[in-house]
């Protein structure tokens, strides 16, 4: 590798050719402020917050896009540099809807933090504010352009990471607004509700549709039996909001905290994940043995499902008909559990605590009322439940260890790994192998489909047959994989797709990291390893060994893919348009 020598503020640095000034500076622990820069996602040099002096260059240079060269002399902290950054920031602030105390990003906002770090004491500019739009028609995502600083991190994420591309800067100059076409609502275009744009946004211009009020109300209502289900990925992320470090495992603290918040029962989506594996594993075998549509593609990720409906309707028949674990849980809670406990299902209020914004959309789909009621009443993101706990004065970090309630809180390690990319496939293989061969699987860890690589493949021998599987996460990767299948460049029997990069641990409802922190840590990988640690520590690690799931089949469902299962646990899909339709006039 060709190396380049330069000095930054007089300090010698050696870095590989092609490195930017910003990266070189960070290597020696120098902090250059940034705003539009998001490593690997948005490197467009638009905001000029990161300017530095380069000796010999006429103007100040944006360090996030400026490559180093041999003998370069860089100054990151001159009066001119400091003044230029301040002017940039003050101009942004002068056209910003500054309402920090009531803003969803208060104390976790890059703009606010920069104002502190750059020592802004007053804003020297005043002027007209840009025309703003508040769009809360989507069931998942709220846009508040009064806080948008036009950094385009969301745009790059939506286009390049997710391969969706429904938001862009429209119009020009002072009128510029990041929005869907014709300034429509996100609800009117083919947005898949993944929430990845929220994670990319440095400020409060994008946020989830907040549902905490609904849940507070239910918790206060003595008539209501309020139950919670916690998604696998939440147990390795909620602790972050309480200062426990990235990927801290808080599985047993969550039941304690939620009980104190007033939930009548605290259950586990991992239970429903095990149930999903029973249904989906058998569906796979059914299709394999009886010439059904292959490859079978997993259906746990509602962002992926909506993506498939809009952009790849030709694959709808490949989708597993299994509902996602969240929805299986809801359907079982308001039927089996209601009967078993003798509770009127109309009095049960199911709250899902999810790493995901698309789940908010999913629970409102008309298909998701198999119990005769809306199966899941409210979905809270990891961020929302953290806000509720804080509002109630409950410090998760200080909670004792408690267990989930029975029976819908009993789970295996296979259910837990649903939270990381590759996990659903691995869980399915653990079960499918043993169901088909009747033998015990020796090594249950399928490491080749774990990890952060965008597309992963493996071939697994089951009873003399080579089963080809593939895993994709992040919808741009899903596109690549599906195009390969479409063009017959690859053939698989079984495919797992998760909308979010990293799988649910990287979900759009998860705690938000600043661009600086994302530069330092691969948070998805950290949370992912935590998920596998959860799995390793479980006494049972295969879904078909879950005693509560077995009991559910014995007492209620009969058998996987049976009549009751079809009624409660399976669903269907609808092709949707890729573009909004024009109205004639």
């Amino acid at each position, binding site marked *: 590798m060709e190396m380049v020598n330069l000095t930054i503020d007089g300090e010698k640095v050696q870095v590989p050719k092609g490195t930017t000034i910003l990266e070189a500076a960070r290597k020696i622990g120098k902090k250059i402020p940034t705003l539009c820069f998001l490593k690997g996602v948005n490197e467009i040099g638009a905001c000029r917050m990161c300017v530095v002096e380069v000796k010999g260059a006429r103007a100040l240079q944006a360090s996030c896009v400026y490559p180093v060269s041999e003998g370069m002399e860089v100054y990151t902290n001159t009066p001119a540099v400091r003044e230029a950054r301040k002017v940039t920031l003050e101009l942004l602030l002068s056209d910003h809807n500054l309402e920090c105390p009531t803003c969803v990003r208060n104390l976790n906002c890059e703009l606010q933090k920069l104002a502190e770090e750059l020592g802004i004491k007053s804003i020297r500019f005043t002027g007209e504010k840009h025309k703003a739009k508040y769009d809360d028609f989507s069931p998942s995502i709220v846009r508040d352009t009064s806080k948008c600083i036009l950094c385009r991190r969301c745009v790059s994420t939506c*286009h390049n990471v997710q391969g*969706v*591309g*429904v*938001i*862009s*800067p*429209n*119009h*020009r100059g002072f009128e510029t607004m990041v929005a*869907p*076409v*014709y*300034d*429509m609502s996100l609800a*009117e*275009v083919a947005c898949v509700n993944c929430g990845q744009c929220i994670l990319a946004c440095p400020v409060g211009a994008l946020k989830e549709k907040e549902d905490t009020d609904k849940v507070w109300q239910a918790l206060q209502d003595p008539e209501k039996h309020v139950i919670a289900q916690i998604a696998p990925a939440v147990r390795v992320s909620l602790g972050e909001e309480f200062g426990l470090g990235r990927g801290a495992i808080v599985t047993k603290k969550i039941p304690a905290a939620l009980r104190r918040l007033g939930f009548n029962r605290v259950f586990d989506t991992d239970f429903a994940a095990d149930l999903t594996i029973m249904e989906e594993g058998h569906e796979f075998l059914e299709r394999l043995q009886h010439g059904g549509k292959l490859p079978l593609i997993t259906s746990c990720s509602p962002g992926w499902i909506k993506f498939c409906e809009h952009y790849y309707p030709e694959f709808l028949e490949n989708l597993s008909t299994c509902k996602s674990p969240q929805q299986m849980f809801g359907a079982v809670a308001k039927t089996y559990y209601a009967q078993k406990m003798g509770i009127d299902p109309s009095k049960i209020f199911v709250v899902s605590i999810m790493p995901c914004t698309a789940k908010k959309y999913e629970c409102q789909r008309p298909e998701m009322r198999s119990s005769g009621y809306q199966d899941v009443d409210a979905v809270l993101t990891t961020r929302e439940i953290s806000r509720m706990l804080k509002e109630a004065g409950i410090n998760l970090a200080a909670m004792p260890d408690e267990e989930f309630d029975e029976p819908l809180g009993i789970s295996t390690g296979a259910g837990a790994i649903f939270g990381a990319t590759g996990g659903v496939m691995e869980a399915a293989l653990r079960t499918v192998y043993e169901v088909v061969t009747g033998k015990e699987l020796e090594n249950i860890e399928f490491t080749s489909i774990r990890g952060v690589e965008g597309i992963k493949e493996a071939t697994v021998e089951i009873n003399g047959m080579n089963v080809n599987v593939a895993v994709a996460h992040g919808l741009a990767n899903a596109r690549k994989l599906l195009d390969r299948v479409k063009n017959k460049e690859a053939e698989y029997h079984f495919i797992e797709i998760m909308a979010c990069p990293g799988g649910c641990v990287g979900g759009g409802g998860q705690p938000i990291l600043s661009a600086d922190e994302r530069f330092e840590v691969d948070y998805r990988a950290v949370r992912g390893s935590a998920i596998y640690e959860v799995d390793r520590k479980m006494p049972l690690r295969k879904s078909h060994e879950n005693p509560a799931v077995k009991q559910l089949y014995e007492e209620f469902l009969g058998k996987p893919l049976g009549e009751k299962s079809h009624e409660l646990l399976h669903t269907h899909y609808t092709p949707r348009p*890729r*573009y*909004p339709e*024009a*109205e*004639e*006039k």
Partner: protein
Amino acid sequence: MKLAAKKDSELAEKLMEVEKMLEKYKGQKGALLQVLQEAQKIVGYLPIEVQKRVAEALNVTLSEVYSTVTFYSFFNLKPRGKYQIRICLGTACYVKGADKVLSRLEQELGIKVGDTTDDLKFSLDACRCVGACGLAPVVIINDDVYGRMTPDKVPEILKNYE
């Protein structure tokens, strides 16, 4: 949300022409600007139907196409009005108060510069010096030139185009 579009029959023919034009640009993301210009030449403006076809052909998102169309002032989202109003914002006209005339025009028509009224009757554009500085400020409606304009004359003049 209303998306301006002419009647299908009028548009259908032009769309076929656009499709034909697009054939030589299949998959060429970099050709977006040029393609939009050609499409506007054919249709006269760039309704969503045209933008969708451009997006499909070039393999870019509709959002990217719309972003580009709204960035450049020479692209029109709506068909031009039956009466095209141009107001000169050249120096001579400007110093004599063309900006006030423009505000009044925008107010009376309920549209901004570059836009077309919903009934497709008027479109409003600004232009540079039209060589009639002696008459400043100048407004031109189709082929009629109105000199020494004042904001108050605006409603009167618009009445000529009922």
